[in-house]
């Protein structure tokens, strides 16, 4: 396996783990996803398919299709973390009805929360995507 192929594969695994993880929280543990969670899901779920198609058909196009989604997800997750940790007050949050975006559902080891996991996943994806882009142009 070429280095770029390995990075593309890592992207795919990251997106798949994040997708299944978020489905585990909502479908198995039955935590209701808040509005911001949904925006992050909208960015994450299609990445699984984009990385699958990219790996087999258009490796060189993967970055162009995946990076915009990863950026949107990353910024939403970043904002969500600010809300979650109380850096932005709840009253300024867009969640007026339904589930509050600052409700803490899990808290592992005192700092790992669901928005934090999401932000970590998008950060890993962005790093991998830029590595993928560089490696692909080097391998040419």
């Amino acid at each position, binding site marked *: 396996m070429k280095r770029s192929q390995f990075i593309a594969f890592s992207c795919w695994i990251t997106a798949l783990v994040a997708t299944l993880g978020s489905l*585990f929280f909502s479908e*198995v543990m039955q935590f209701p996803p808040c509005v911001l969670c949904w925006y992050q899901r909208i960015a994450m779920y299609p990445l699984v398919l984009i990385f699958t198609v990219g790996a087999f058909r258009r490796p060189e196009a993967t970055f162009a299709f995946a990076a915009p989604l990863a950026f949107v997800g990353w910024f939403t997750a970043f904002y969500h973390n600010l809300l979650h940790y109380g850096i932005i007050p709840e009253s300024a949050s867009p969640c007026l009805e339904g589930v509050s975006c600052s409700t803490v559902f899990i808290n592992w080891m005192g700092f790992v929360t669901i928005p934090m996991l999401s932000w970590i996943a998008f950060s890993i994806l962005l790093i991998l995507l830029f590595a993928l882009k560089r490696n692909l142009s080097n391998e040419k």
Partner: protein
Amino acid sequence: MKNKVFIYALSGVLLLGAFALAAFLYKNSEKERLSFLASSESELFVRDYSPRYGNPEAKVVISEFLDPECESCRAFYPVVKSLMKEFDDKVQLVLRYAPFHGNSELAIRALEAARFQNKYWEALELLFYTQPQWGDHHHPRPELIFEYLSQMGLDMERLKTDMASPKIQEMIDQDKQDLRALKIRGTPTFFVNGQQLQDFSEEGLRSLLRSEIEKAYP
């Protein structure tokens, strides 16, 4: 290329398998947790202050966590009532509150105040019946609650004073605390002697009741 397909397919299957296994383990541990709570902390399901219906000596207790403003609770209420009739003196119903909507607490307060005047069940049925009017999610009109209740021959002055009673507030707070302990996020949620109803349907509740009655009245 073939090699690559194999790696992706294998990883996908492994991850999906891990997901299914984790889901299975989680569900099992939740079941165990609930049955442990049922045996060690039965007051989580049944509180002394809660409204009760049916034979107080009955060994099979349905704990229904309901919200007067929830449509499914309204739709399921006749089912619960007919099942209570069907199993008669072997089953009693304990109502707990899950105020998940905007005017739920107001309605609960009014119901509890009606209970002070011994008109609880009539008031509950009336509020369920008129729920589409006062509890419409797009145009809620909570003021209608009082209009409807006043038609029942309640002393409305007294009702309004009683609604502010700290006893009612304590009760709502305790129910909310129990909701969190039991991880209840939807209404109605039923427990029969601490066993959670999994299949939410008339047949599901009937068969759960049957199996608990067999255990309690061998």
